[in-house]
């Protein structure tokens, strides 16, 4: 493993019901620092399961995941410590409804990184400013629109200074007119060199921002390559029929 590799996945499996259902069926891949990997595929293809396995929200039934050279699937690894360096953004935002935006963002840095309140709030406000939401710092989540919530969720994860950001269909629960503002934030994040793994149905985003696109179906990686390889020159019939349906 060279020092550019951030995550190394080896023969990852996730079986349900004793192997009857194979959500992940032997996935092997490497994610390098600074890469933006977009995972596409039909629903039920295992792409969300793969993403959620990366920080062990789903516990794989086989295979291994090396993060920063540490096997996080090892029972002895302290996964909580590694999760601090892996930001995650969910389809349904999952902001804490009983806390203000600022509290949402400062809770984890203050409790886990032992950052002082002033420092945590200063950084949170800086980040809020980058997503044009500094004026909503004291709002509660239910006072925000979906797009605003998701932008908050992104900067909440960034408050922990993650090494990689995992996006689980971040725009799927949004009204169409709000998709753009969230993708914009993600695009800027990618331009700053953040390592990102994105599960999405936004093919435009994949084509424009991804450094590599992975196509999954039935728990396997069917095809991977640069956006132009995948979108302009698909090899496998399954990818071809998938693209014919979504493009």
């Amino acid at each position, binding site marked *: 493993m060279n020092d550019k590799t951030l995550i190394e996945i080896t023969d990852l499996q996730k079986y349900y019901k004793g192997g009857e259902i194979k959500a992940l069926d032997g996935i092997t891949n490497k994610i390098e620092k600074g890469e933006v990997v977009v995972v596409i595929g039909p629903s039920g293809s295992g792409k969300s399961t793969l993403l959620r396995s990366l*920080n062990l*929200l789903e*516990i794989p*039934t086989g295979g291994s995941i090396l993060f920063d050279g540490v096997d996080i699937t090892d*029972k002895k690894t302290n996964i*909580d*410590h590694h*999760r*601090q360096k*892996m*930001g*995650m953004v*969910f389809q*349904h935002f*999952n*902001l*804490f*409804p*009983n806390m203000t935006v600022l509290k949402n963002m400062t*809770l*984890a840095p203050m*409790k*886990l990184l032992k950052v002082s309140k002033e420092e945590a709030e200063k950084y949170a406000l800086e980040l809020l400013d980058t997503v044009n939401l500094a004026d909503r710092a004291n709002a*509660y989540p*239910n*006072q925000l629109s979906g797009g605003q919530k998701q932008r908050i969720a992104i900067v*909440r*994860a960034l408050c*922990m200074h993650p090494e990689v950001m995992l996006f689980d269909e971040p725009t799927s629960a949004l009204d169409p007119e709000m998709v753009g503002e969230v993708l914009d934030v993600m695009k800027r994040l990618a331009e700053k060199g953040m390592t990102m793994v994105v599960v999405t149905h936004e093919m435009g985003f994949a084509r424009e921002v991804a450094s590599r696109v992975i196509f999954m179906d039935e728990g396997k990686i069917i095809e991977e390559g640069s956006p132009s390889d995948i979108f302009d020159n698909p090899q496998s019939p399954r990818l071809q029929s998938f693209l014919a349906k979504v493009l």
Partner: protein
Amino acid sequence: MNNFLNSLYDQFRLNFIDDNRWEWIVKGLKSTLIITLCALIIGLIIGIIIASIRSTYDKNLETFKLRGGIGYHIMKFLNFICHIYLTVVRGTPVVVQLLIAYFIIFASSRNGIYVAIFAFGINSGAYVAEILRGGIMSIDNGQFEAGRSLGFNYLQTMRHIIIPQVFKNVLPALCNEFISLLKETSIAGYVGIVDLTKAGDLIRGRTFSPFMPLIAVALIYLIIVLILTQLVKLLERRLRNSER
């Protein structure tokens, strides 16, 4: 009219003033409140422990199964014990539980109040446990995942993210449990405790005039319950406001 008022006054004198019978009511009320409060505290402690075990087991079942180890078996065993406790306590009348506690478990003790506190505490614990567990399970799993993905461990996620939300949701239900508990303690007379109900009944037995003492007792319960209900309402409004 005058006659009626006079007879009412006579009854009042007979039941409460003569022989200082009002003192019985005061003493009875004191016992009732002591039993209720202490049982509530015991119930809360038991409830929190049981709810923690049960919801931890439910929430982490998959993890436990995959990672195996001794932890899974310990949790499975604890969960089983809790399950039996809940089934038995909620499946039998509280009077019977009180009698069993007094005549079987603590047969050698004749200190009724302690036995009653124990019995009502154990009983209340089961209901509190289910209220809390319901509250925990009603929180969207996404909240857990958000907490865990930020790097909080299970206990930290519970403490900083889940419990504050659960607390708001279950507070009204807990207050209602408190109110039912207060009323349920009226059966304490079964094991020779002079609580509020028993005090009224004793006066009735002495004066052979049931109206005054029993209505007085009913009014006292009602007033306490009304005060508590009002407090719950205030609390609920407050909680709702803070969420905006």
